[in-house]
């Protein structure tokens, strides 16, 4: 039974709005990017809401200044712009400075992967996971559904530090119940068959596709464990490798460039050496920009990322 589709941003922002009423140290900044829930924030909390305009460098710098004076800051914009237009501001004033000066800043980017499928490469976030992962002291949170996004909003407000939250722009059904605090702490959540010899490790939108691939393989008699990676920087990789220990065939799936430092790099560095008996395959986007217009699933399928293609790839991996 699929749950109603919801936008991650609405769920995330609703939590922020709800808490701003009682917690006077939350400040919201936007880079001229809105949402219906945000209209309520700027109406009800005008003293702690600012639109800095189309100026992501200043967005991050102003967020830093507010955070140094004790505010917990949410900075909100389109995903490629809040990560790449202002990469040096994030590096200098969040990654480096937060190592010596405590702060709580959450960068919220909307438009993960091919979310903006008709806007072309400028608006698609295909490098953001790798770039943010490259920066020490920055969390990289990648929810797959609105329930997870809401849980992450609470976690962001309750946890000192700096993180980038990568939200999909499309309404999506919830993958399952909201992740527990323990799952958020570990940075991943499991579904499917624990102890299976085959595993799919995915993040964001592709965790929905992974569930479909799992269903297809299990319908054919192959038990599959699915792992939804929520934290791409600080996940508990010791715990993850323990969970994956029975697996002999592991296929990773991400909506970002493959081999460039994204989720595949996290697993190759921390999981692959600890699981010497496992065979691995990595599905992602080839490092090449595409100017074709969506739909999103067609863009992904053109790169071998579809339910049938990935199910076949798992079978191929098992038979290798």
């Amino acid at each position, binding site marked *: 039974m699929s749950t109603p589709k919801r936008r991650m941003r609405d769920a995330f922002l609703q939590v922020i709005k709800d808490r701003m009423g009682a917690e006077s140290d939350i400040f919201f900044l936007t880079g001229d990017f809105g949402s219906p829930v945000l209209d309520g924030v700027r109406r009800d909390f005008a003293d702690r809401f600012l639109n800095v*305009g189309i100026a992501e460098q*200043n967005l991050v710098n*102003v967020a830093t200044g507010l*955070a140094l004076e*004790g*505010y917990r800051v949410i900075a909100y914009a389109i995903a490629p712009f809040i990560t790449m237009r202002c990469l040096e*501001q994030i590096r200098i004033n969040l990654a480096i*400075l937060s190592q*010596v000066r405590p702060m709580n800043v959450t960068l919220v980017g909307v438009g993960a992967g091919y979310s903006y499928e008709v806007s072309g490469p400028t608006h698609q976030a295909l490098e953001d996971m790798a770039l943010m992962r490259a920066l020490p002291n920055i969390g990289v949170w990648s929810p797959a559904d609105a329930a997870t996004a809401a849980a992450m909003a609470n976690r962001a407000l309750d946890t000192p530090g700096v993180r980038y939250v990568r939200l999909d722009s499309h309404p999506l059904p919830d993958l399952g119940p909201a992740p527990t605090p323990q799952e958020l702490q570990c940075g991943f959540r499991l579904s499917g068959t624990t102890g299976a010899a085959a595993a799919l490790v995915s993040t964001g939108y592709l965790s929905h596709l992974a569930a479909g691939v799992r269903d297809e393989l299990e319908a054919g008699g192959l038990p599959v464990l699915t792992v939804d990676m929520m934290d791409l920087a600080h996940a508990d990789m010791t715990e993850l490798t323990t969970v994956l220990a029975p697996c002999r065939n592991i296929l990773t799936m991400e909506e970002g460039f493959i081999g460039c430092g994204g989720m595949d790099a996290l697993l190759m560095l921390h999981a692959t050496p600890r699981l010497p008996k496992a065979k691995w395959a990595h599905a992602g986007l080839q490092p090449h920009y595409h100017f074709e217009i969506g739909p999103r699933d067609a863009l992904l399928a053109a790169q071998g990322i579809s339910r049938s293609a990935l199910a076949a790839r798992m079978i191929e991996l098992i038979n290798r």
Partner: protein
Amino acid sequence: MTSAHQHSGSLRELAARFRADTLRIHAQAPETRVASSLSAVEIYTCLFYGGLLRHNPANPRDPARDRLIVSKGHGSISLYPILADRGFFSPEELARVCRPGTFLGGIPDPIIPGYETVNGSLGHGPGVGTGMAIALQRQGSDRRVVVVVGDGELHEGAVWEALLFAAQQKLNNLILIVDDNGRCMMDYTSHVVDLAPLPDKLRAFGWSVEEVNGHDVDALCATLRRSMECSFPGPRAVITHTIKGKGAPALEDDPLCHVRTLTPGEVEELTGGAP
């Protein structure tokens, strides 16, 4: 908390002393950017000894302090002897600048007591200072945020994003001091990207603007105070006309002085050799 009138000697004498100290630091640590640091000696002297910047060496992050962001970080080696003299750290540390294990690097970081932010990568200070000023204003604080930038730094686009936004927010607690020494690294700024007429540009962006000779401590102090205390309902800028490499003729005359290193002999000649 002090506004620091408690100094012996005039501001002019203090500035001369800190200029000599800066040259001596450079002699032992030639990696430091001495020319850019010499142009700002009087700016830092006035802030810390002219009763302009509330600070607390015993608690550098005292909430009651005014915030100083030295955005042109590498051009602030001249602030090291001032911070040591004020008591932020031991003067003995000045003998260890750029040595292994010290916290006093060639480009200062916020591990140094007295520094607020990461500096030296240019163009960040105005935006971070804007965020601080917004916070202080909304928290009802009467503390000020002072940001020191170089004129070459104004080539960075992020500076102008911040200038626009600070004016939009009417941040009358934000003071921008421009160390207008006329040179970036490779040439005169006017030859690279001419900023003139800078006062008009800043005014057009919504800032009040004062200009002053940045090496005349009395005029500089008076101008900074007037700018800080004026009733203008927005951010204020003080453009200090300075000379890059001030006090070292070999630097003053060299458009490439930013990367010039003085020899120990040259420093000894300029400082009279006294430690």
